[in-house]
């Protein structure tokens, strides 16, 4: 029985007892490798959060209108999944948002990587693009919403443009850093083994830059998802961000909370996928 509990704990990544090696260490405070993930505490914190939420709503410390119970939120989740909200089911809203995010993200990634790598390799490209990127990069994406609406209207184009801009700057900076991160010894070794310029670019510089490029993708995926709500504030008629904003207008707090949780879970899901990709595609990251 206890061994079964142990296996379940291991499967969940929970180990109540510290690993043997850590127990033998005399200096633990300050040793980063001695700080475990603390999964059991994570589970505890989620349980406490839900219980507190439930208790506050049951005691009606705050009116139900502003503080719906977890059950009401769950019911809304089911209801909108099946019946939909203003013309689209939850999944429909999700797909619409996904389309915008992925379109902006992919465009930004492809062009950003191209520009970033060219900037890392060529003085001319770097000189040409540097002022433009350095000027627009610090501006929060929300700040150019008005100009985007004026130029691109209120269709999907404007939203994709906004997400593209958010992705592009991050990808340029990261790909450029990736190009620069190569050690000159690797480049020298490749040339002295008979590689041509093109081969050095393909087999050394690009591969070597992959970890930074993927970090950039992970960061910009997060930023995209965060910018999405802002993008959908602008005259949208569907999408997860729009759903939340629209529900807030009618004080449908249960839908708002449900939408926020769904967006959080999806954002976290993206991050997990990116981490998985990193482990598959660039297992050498940080070990070169």
């Amino acid at each position, binding site marked *: 029985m206890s061994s079964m509990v142990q296996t379940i704990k291991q499967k969940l990544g929970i180990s109540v007892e510290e690993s043997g090696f850590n127990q033998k260490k005399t200096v633990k405070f300050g040793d980063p490798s001695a700080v475990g993930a603390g999964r059991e505490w994570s589970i505890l914190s989620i349980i406490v959060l839900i219980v507190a939420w439930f208790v506050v709503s049951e005691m009606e410390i705050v009116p139900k209108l502003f503080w719906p119970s977890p059950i009401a939120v769950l019911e809304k989740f089911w209801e909108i999944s099946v019946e939909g909200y203003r013309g689209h089911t939850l999944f429909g809203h999700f797909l619409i948002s996904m389309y915008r995010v992925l379109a902006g993200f992919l465009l930004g990634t492809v062009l950003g990587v191209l520009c970033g790598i060219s900037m890392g390799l060529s003085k001319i490209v770097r000189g040409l693009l540097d002022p433009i990127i350095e000027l627009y990069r610090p501006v929060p994406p929300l700040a150019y919403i008005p100009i985007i609406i004026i130029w691109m209207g209120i269709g999907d184009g404007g939203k994709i443009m906004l997400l593209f801009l958010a992705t592009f700057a991050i990808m340029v900076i990261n790909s450029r850093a990736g190009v620069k991160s190569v*050690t000159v010894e*690797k480049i*020298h070794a490749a040339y002295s083994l008979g*590689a041509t310029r093109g081969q050095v670019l393909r087999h050394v510089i690009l591969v*070597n830059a992959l970890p930074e490029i993927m970090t950039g993708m992970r960061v910009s995926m997060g930023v995209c998802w965060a910018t999405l709500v802002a993008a959908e504030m602008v005259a949208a008629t569907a999408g997860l961000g729009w759903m939340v904003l629209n529900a807030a207008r009618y004080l449908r707090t249960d839908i708002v909370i449900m939408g926020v949780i769904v967006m959080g879970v999806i954002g976290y899901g993206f991050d997990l996928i990116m981490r998985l990709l990193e482990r598959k595609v*660039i297992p050498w990251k940080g*070990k070169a």
Partner: protein
Amino acid sequence: MNARLELQNVSFAYPPEHTHVRFFGDVEDITFSIRDGQPMAVVGCSGSGKTTLVRLISGFLLPGSGQILWNGRPVANPSPERGVVFQNNAMFPWLTVAENVEFGLKMQKMPSGERRRKVAEYLDLLNLGRFAAASLYKINDYNVLLRVSLARCLVCDPPLLILDDEPLGELDDAQRTRLQKLLLNIWEAKQHMMLTVTHDVDEALILSTEVLIMGGRPGRIIDRYQTSFAPRAAHEGIQQVRRTQEFSEMRQTILRHIVCGV
């Protein structure tokens, strides 16, 4: 004498503002040549310009004055004909051991069947067979990494093998002697030119038939000695040669020349 590598009054000075490369010493008026099949060694302290010399010979730097001739033609760029075994950071962690060894042949577009045969041969020669499929980033044993680096270079059959700046320096004594023996055996079999750059006098003597001593700032060749230790070590064994009177005398003589600043 059919010299294939020839340095004539070669000098190189880093620009003064390059403080981050000041670690490498300038060189001045270097003249020597390596005959076909000759193992040569350069010894000197840190900062005597040994690394600079290697960069010049391998073609990563152009001399400030003087000239470097490879088969009679000035060296203008790196080439697989002058294979360099780098000190560190020069491996490709994203490839497996076998793919690292294959790299040069693949870049030179050797057909894949022939390529695989050669890679297998050299993995075997350097005793790397059981690591062939291992990802390089997972290997942290310097001894293995160094042998991969050697295999990667040797598989291209370079007429000149350059051992850059103490590649054997991080090995323990036993590993080091074993690898020196291996290098000598390969040299005997292939009769390539070899240039060992090190601050270890012992190693310089074992792996060469001529030792150049570099010193001063900028680095010059302050003396040179002809020996017969490399072929003897290959036949009689490294330890046997080390124990001879002749070896220790030569070692003392050279050590007296090497006066490193504090």
